[in-house]
């Protein structure tokens, strides 16, 4: 394991005054531990990676409610299904790629189909895990998670909103997939009133947060791409282009109204996600737009390839996941407006 480095370029932080914050997996781990105090129904099932997923914080405080199932993701998820059927609220945690890819059928039969109250939490999402390489990177987890009927799929953008998302996830009853990341992540939702946020982090499942107003184009992003979307909007603004920015933290159910409004009011959309272009946020947006208000879209994401080992920043650049890729996409899509 390398020491997690931030994926934020210096420029983002400088341009926007964003501070570097903890990784979203850390924020999840802390929120889970806190919730464990008051919610006795929460139990955790992990697959020998609690020091990666950060369920170890919970495990330390509530050892009797923590189950390490070893490296056996299929069993892990089905055990969580049984615990939920017996009245518990289990968190099933592993690396995102192993949780979704190694236990898809167990989630289908044991969680999605019976709508059981299981919270799946996948850490190490995206290519920003860096050096461990493609076998450990989840770039298809959103395609898999959104394919489940009855599912809620959440991709928070920073540490504070991850805490809010974790709380919201337990207030909601039903199957949820929460995607967390490994690198340190810029803080977008500060509690100090900056960046348009108030004391309370705004977080409602299924409701996008509009972080910036603009009418030339809408950038719809999730996860670590939200900070980059803000940076891109800043750059575009310096070129006289005002972009709306939506933090689409819930991929399913999608905030149809916010997307439709964006299509109608800005006439062009860029989606940005740390995921394959196929099957994730971009496809959800494209589908809705085709049904409600057809407009041109450009998709920023990993383009139908597996990645490689490397330093996180370098990989994001190499695979086209930077603020400047978003800027380029925005310019292209604006040129295509009818």
């Amino acid at each position, binding site marked *: 394991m390398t020491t997690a480095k931030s994926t934020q370029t210096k420029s983002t932080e400088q341009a926007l005054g964003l501070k570097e914050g903890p990784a979203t997996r850390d924020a999840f781990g802390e929120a889970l531990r806190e919730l464990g105090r008051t919610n006795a129904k929460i139990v955790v099932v992990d697959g020998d990676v609690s020091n990666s997923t950060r369920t170890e914080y919970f495990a330390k405080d509530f050892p009797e409610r923590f189950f390490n199932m070893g490296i056996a993701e*299929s069993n892990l998820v089905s055990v969580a299904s*049984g615990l939920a059927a017996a009245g518990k609220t289990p968190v099933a945690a592993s690396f995102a790629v192993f949780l979704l890819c190694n236990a898809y059928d167990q989630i289908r*039969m*044991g969680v999605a189909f019976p709508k059981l109250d299981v919270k799946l939490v996948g850490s190490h999402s995206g290519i920003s895990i860096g050096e461990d390489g493609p076998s450990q990177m989840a770039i298809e987890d959103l395609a898999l998670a959104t394919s489940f009927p009855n599912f809620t799929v959440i991709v928070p953008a920073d540490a504070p909103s991850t805490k809010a998302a974790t709380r919201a996830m337990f207030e909601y009853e039903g199957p949820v997939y929460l995607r967390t990341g490994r690198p340190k992540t810029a803080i977008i939702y500060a509690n100090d009133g900056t960046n348009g946020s108030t004391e309370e982090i705004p977080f409602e499942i299924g409701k996008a947060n509009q972080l910036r107003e603009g009418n030339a184009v809408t950038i719809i992003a999730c996860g670590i791409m939200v900070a980059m979307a803000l940076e891109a909007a800043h750059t575009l603004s310096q070129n006289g282009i005002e972009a709306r920015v939506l933090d689409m933290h819930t991929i399913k159910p999608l905030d149809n109204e916010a997307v439709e409004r964006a299509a109608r009011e800005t006439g062009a959309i860029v989606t940005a996600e740390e995921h394959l272009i196929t099957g994730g946020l971009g496809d959800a947006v494209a589908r809705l737009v085709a049904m409600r208000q057809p407009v041109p879209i450009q998709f920023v994401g990993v383009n139908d390839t597996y990645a490689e080992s490397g330093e996180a920043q370098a990989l994001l650049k190499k695979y086209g996941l930077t603020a400047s890729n978003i800027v380029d996409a925005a310019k292209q899509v604006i040129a295509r407006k009818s």
Partner: protein
Amino acid sequence: MPQSSNEQVVEKVAAVLNKHASGANKSEAMVPNRDFTALQETAWRLSREIIEMTTKAGSGHPSSSLSMIDILTALYFGGVMRYNPQEPHWEERDRFILSKGHGAPGLYAVLAEAGYFNPALLDTLRQTDSPVEGHPIMNRLPGIEASTGSLGQGLSIGLGHALAARLDKRDYRVYVIIGDGESDEGQIWEAAMAAAKYQADNLTCILDLNQFQQTGSVNKVMPSLEPVVDKWEAFGWHVREIDGHDMEAVLEALRAVKTVTQQPQMIVAHTLKGRGLSPFEKNDVNRKHGEALKPEEAEIALAELDEQRTWAVYDPAGSRLPNNERSANRLAKEIVTRQGETGKPMENKS
């Protein structure tokens, strides 16, 4: 989305659901404990129902249901499991999970008999709008504890229930039936290892060792399942081996394992796929697995069952069945040996 519906089916279903919706009917735990003759009579009747409902439906898995029907009868009516059909979600209930979900008709027959729903519903097996599904679906029908049909998952789900019992300091027990073909699935062994780690002594698994899977005998498809007893012992389980059609042996094993501590328990039950009824003994993989009997075959099977119904007339005390040629209670071991001899020992060894 549902745009059309089968009115008859919908009516029947409504009747069932109303029964449980009221919640007014709460009552004490039940541990039905029929006497030995009554148990044999029950297993006999349920066997008939399995054949009747699947033949009527035109599909279903009668042979897979029949091989475990004596075990299910013992579990639900032999003083083994406690449950309350009036309150299917009663928290103290023992759980039963049919991991080999395609044996659903057997489970449905048992649940109807136990009073979870009106037996008339069995007629709607596999019909649109009926909760009596091809494979068990939880929350669609009272008494179904898990959605199964993708093999390999039920034991892990059962372990989840078993761990919850421990957390809640409840003393309910969890029973899971798995298939011998199903044992090819790695998840079975993941669950086996994890259950041993957690010393889940409130978890009992019964292996329906009927010697056949979908495309042939276990001896042909996966001969290396044997030595199966050694496997489960090496995985840390308490293991017993019985004739799964010998009601006395089944009851004895199910009662005995309750006293085992710190270990989950595996009951390896030697059974006959189709419970020895001749239409299933045809040299045809589809008859052996997965196909319903045609009406004329069903008649033969039912007649054979009637022939077996000797206890009610001859043996009111309820001891073991006479050892006639077609008795489903002859020692499965014999059959196992026979299959071992005739089955090709290996395939694809070039």
